[in-house]
């Protein structure tokens, strides 16, 4: 195990934003870190990059406790590089930015030059070599930040949304690159992303954070809803004014609740074709917009007014063979729908 986290807690101004009882990160693999905004992904990466010390808990790296003495930190940081979510460039040229990490490692000049050229070429920025780094466009900046890290050939590469504003061609190049340095040099890679396609295709292991805590699966299909009582007195969830869902019998609802959050388990949705009948409480009609493979399952995105994700087994998919553009009906099995939060913010 490369990293071993025990009882890690990170607080900012009395708010705990990270709380990890136990987590291990294997060496030599590519890991994806998923989770909604504010889940603590960046906070975790900063811990793993030894930039912050945790408020509480024990962090072990390569089997040894991390001690946060200055000399030790330097030694550790030379093995781990973090590429920021919104990277900042030093006020110098593009080449100068890449050179920095090499210079502080006392790499001799000719080797440095070669490494710079190589790194810039891999991210397609060679022609901007002498340009001031601050003048690059958003995606170019992100690629330069990656090049700056890659040139150092670190043992561990932590990337905070490495392709968030990178164009498609370069996304592919970067993905290929990460895969390549992983296989060629055994570099451990941990990257955050909101793009499940990327996570699924690139990572060998996926890690999901929610509210600072690791969770087994990600809560997709989470919607803010209003609770509407119809003329019969039955309560429905109304999603963004577009979709109406009936409330599962066991759900207790506080009388004052008018808004809340519902979660629809994507594995508890079944999909049937051709049934062009009226939508009822436990069934909604929509169009398939996307189908993709994802770690042993098939992910189907259906537009039902809101975007809803269905996860099918490969066998079920092979059997049914739904196609993009088809109109389908979604059925919800019992307890597919959970009311996560109940609130009444407006009086």
């Amino acid at each position, binding site marked *: 195990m490369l990293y071993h986290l025990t009882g890690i807690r990170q607080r900012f101004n009395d708010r705990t934003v990270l709380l990890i009882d136990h987590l291990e990160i294997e060496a030599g693999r590519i890991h994806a870190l998923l989770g909604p905004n504010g889940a603590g992904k960046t906070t975790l990466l900063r811990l793993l990059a030894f*930039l912050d010390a945790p408020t509480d808990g024990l962090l072990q790296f390569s089997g040894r406790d991390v001690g946060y003495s200055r000399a030790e930190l*330097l030694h550790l940081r030379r093995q781990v590089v973090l590429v*920021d979510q919104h990277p900042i460039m030093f006020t110098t040229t593009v080449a100068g930015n890449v050179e*920095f990490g090499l210079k*502080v490692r006392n790499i001799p000049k000719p080797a440095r030059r070669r490494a710079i050229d190589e790194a810039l070429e891999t991210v397609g920025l060679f022609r901007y070599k002498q340009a001031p780094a601050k003048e690059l466009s958003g995606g170019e900046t992100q690629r330069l930040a990656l090049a700056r890290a890659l040139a150092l050939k670190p043992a561990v590469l932590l990337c905070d949304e490495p392709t968030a504003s990178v164009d498609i061609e370069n996304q592919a190049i970067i993905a290929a690159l990460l895969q390549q340095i992983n296989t060629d040099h055994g570099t451990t890679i941990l990257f955050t992303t909101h793009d499940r396609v990327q996570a699924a295709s690139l990572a060998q292991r996926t890690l999901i954070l929610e509210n600072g805590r690791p969770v087994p699966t990600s809560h997709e299909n989470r919607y803010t809803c209003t609770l509407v009582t119809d003329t019969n007195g039955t309560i429905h969830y109304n999603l963004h004014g577009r979709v109406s869902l009936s409330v599962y019998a066991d759900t207790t609802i506080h009388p004052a609740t008018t808004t809340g959050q519902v979660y629809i388990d994507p594995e508890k949705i079944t999909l049937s074709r051709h049934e062009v009948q009226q939508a009822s409480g436990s069934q909604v009609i929509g169009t398939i917009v996307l189908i993709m493979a994802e770690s042993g399952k098939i992910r189907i995105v259906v537009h039902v007014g809101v975007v809803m994700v269905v996860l099918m087994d490969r066998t079920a998919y092979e059997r049914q063979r739904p196609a993009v553009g088809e109109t389908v009906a979604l059925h919800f099995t019992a307890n597919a729908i959970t009311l996560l939060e109940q609130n009444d913010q407006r009086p």
Partner: protein
Amino acid sequence: MSFFVDSFTSAFRLIWTLDPELLTIVRVSLSVSCTATVCAALVGVPTGFIVAYGRLPGKRAIITLLNTLLALPTVVIGLLVYTFISRRGIFGHLDLLYTQKAMIIGQFILIVPLIAALTVAAVSRVDERYRNTAKTLGANAWQTALVVLREGRFGIAAAVISAFGRVISEIGIAMMLGGNIKGFTRTMTTAMALEYDKGAFTLAVALGMVLMVLSLGMNIVFNLIQGKALR
């Protein structure tokens, strides 16, 4: 105003004829001011830097103290140094009083807080991400500090330049610790004060103009060195 015209003519004549006395004075002024500025920068910039950048307890108190020291009057500094280096003081045997070294010591004390306080302001403004980026790229404490310094260089240069302006135009300390001894410790400003006391206003202002020309020259040189620091 004929007064300024006269002063101007007079200043021009002084420069044009390369008046030897003027040259001596200019040399003394420059060597004292530059030495004091360089020494003060060597102490003040790191001090300010550490205050702004380090995680010191009582940071705000230190900043307030630095700001307070900005108001240290030259008379007090002069007397303070005097007490130590006068014949009766503990460093009396070094025979420093009324030498250029004494002036440098006094002016050093004068501008260290200025440089430090302005460095604090300059460094505080540097985005924290520079520091983290340098660290994660493997820079040691020293190299990380250099990155932050580099990014704050515009403000730090302003601090040093304003300190230079402060010392080269300073009179009190130069007078008290240097003694305005002709040929040894007479600077542009003490010469000016002398001409003023004599009632020779024209000459005083002429000297002032020479000083401004000098300072302009220094600043142009600074500017060239600083190069692309200005965005």
